[in-house]
């Protein structure tokens, strides 16, 4: 402490409640406030250590393979060997599927169900936000967090490979790869985020929502696989929720999933199915949020 208090000079001053005549920001500020608060909450920031474990684990699952591959690329000089060992950008999503599923089943239930159980949704909707903007803010937060595992690790690979000299050649190729990474990552985030929001909007219980998301993904996958193996048309993959967004990423990179009949499905159907599921789940979330009774 610098100096010492002079006798008689020290005061404890209470400023007291005052009128606020300063700047008041608009709706975009309110939306961003919710996005920021939601992201902090899901990632366990300002929360107990136990509430940081799941998000930290999911992020680690997504980034550790990327860090390992970057290390491998740095250690091995032979580009041919590196190309054989390392996965393509599209194949990398095979390593982060678990992280994406964890966030899918965890993020939106944490945001929507908790708001309903704690009555926060009433406070949100008594602010300048209306129901659509509230949902938009929550969707933004979900998308941002999912992008942490759908875009982030692949982006890390690209940047690292470029710096190591083993990435795409020339600015155009780098930009093209960047665009594909963003498009693919956002596509996965959009479908999983909408699914997560749609299911979570049906209940105020986090555990129920998380279980329902996992069951929906597993059941749709197992059911479609069984039907196709039993001779059904490959177009049934339009209902294969776990595989559908990754199939889209493969198409974006111009690659084949390999060993899957989904490769026989037309690209337009893959795109359309992703879009339809995303919009469908988003519409479900919107309907449920509009039906919420919030002043009780």
């Amino acid at each position, binding site marked *: 402490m610098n100096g010492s208090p002079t006798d008689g000079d020290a005061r404890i001053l209470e400023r007291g409640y005052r*009128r*606020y005549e300063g700047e008041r920001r608009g709706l975009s500020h*309110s939306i961003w*406030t919710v996005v920021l608060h939601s992201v902090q909450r899901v990632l366990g920031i300002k929360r107990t250590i136990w509430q940081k474990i799941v998000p930290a684990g999911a992020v680690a699952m997504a980034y550790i393979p990327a860090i390992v591959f970057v290390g491998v690329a740095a250690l091995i000089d032979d580009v041919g060997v590196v190309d054989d060992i390392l996965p393509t950008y599209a194949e990398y999503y095979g390593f982060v599927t678990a992280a994406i599923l964890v966030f899918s089943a965890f993020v939106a239930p944490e945001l929507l169900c908790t708001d309903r159980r*704690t*009555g926060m949704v009433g*406070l949100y909707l*008594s602010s300048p*936000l209306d129901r659509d903007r509230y949902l938009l803010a929550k969707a933004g937060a979900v998308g941002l967090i999912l992008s942490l595992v759908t875009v982030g690790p692949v982006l890390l690979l690209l940047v690292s490979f470029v710096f190591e000299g083993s990435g795409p050649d020339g600015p155009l190729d780098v930009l093209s790869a960047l665009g594909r990474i963003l498009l693919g990552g956002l596509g996965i985030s959009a479908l999983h985020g909408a699914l997560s929001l749609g299911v979570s909007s049906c209940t105020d219980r986090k555990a129920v929502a998380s279980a329902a998301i996992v069951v929906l993904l597993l059941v749709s996958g197992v059911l479609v696989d069984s039907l196709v193996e039993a001779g059904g048309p490959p177009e049934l993959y339009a209902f294969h929720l776990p595989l559908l967004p990754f199939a889209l990423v493969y198409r974006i990179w111009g690659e084949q999933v390999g060993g899957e009949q989904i490769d026989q499905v037309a690209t337009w159907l893959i795109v359309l199915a992703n879009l339809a599921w995303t919009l469908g789940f988003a519409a479900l979330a919107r309907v449920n949020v509009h039906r919420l009774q919030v002043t009780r």
Partner: protein
Amino acid sequence: MTPVHPSPAPPLPVPPGPPAVVEATGVAKAWGTTAVHTDLTFTVGRGVTGLLGPTGSGKTTLIGMILGLHAPDAGRLRVLGLDPIGAGPELRARIGYAPEHHRLPPDVRAHDLVKHIAALHGLPLREATTRASDALWAVGLGEERHRPIGTMSTGQRQRVKLAQAIAHDPRLVLLDEPTDGLDPVQRDDMLELIRRCSTDYAIDVLVSSHHLEEVERTCDGAVIIAEGRVVASGPLTELRGAAHGVVVEVDEGADALAAELVRRGCTVGADGRRLLVQGGASPEHLADLLRDALADSGVPVRRLQPRSASLEEVFLGVAGGAS
């Protein structure tokens, strides 16, 4: 170091604004086939106003309509001069709301919650942080502001709800059953805080309650809802005055005076030398009747005193009349 307690801050100047904080004309609202409100017509003025009505009378639904969360099926509603549906975001930025329930995120610290709600209402983050502290100090939670809400008592949570409602300096605060779950001491403290919102902080308050005594102690006016319509509204002095009467104390001749008053159509209750006189079309008319009766009977008067009905009498009278 010598702690010096500051003297209370002088009352804040009342900001300019429309004299009618809330204005409803023929507002109706139904949920499905259930009519909640059939005809709400009232005006809420400046200061603290109580929204009174039995449980299930639609007080919370009305608060929802004032916030623009539900559109009225019919009628016209204006809040701070604005249409709550058309100007929802603009209006809600100037309103604070404390819900009835006590559920708040248990693991969030009080300061973080209040700061978050203040930022939601448009305050920049730095200002929201400062004002969250100020609001929590104002409601008596300065020392507790960094505690998780889940560790707080019901009384403290009610204060947190009030703090988040006033932190962004709203023009109007809507408090839904703010004393619910409080013990008598906490209730007194909360009512004092609500009163201070109006007198010290110049914020108009609409407080829903079914405790008549609380409204009587705290509010400047009241809106009484029963059977889907407003059965009485206005300043408390007027509401009490509507059930007008005069206490007349005489030394002798009480019976003669009573007979004279009854002959003029008044209702007279006798208690020895004291008579409770009611009747007449208005307080002025009653005074005229009393003057004439006193002049005609020649009874000397010892004391005359206007008699105000308690809010409970008003409420029971109008609610009974409504049903």
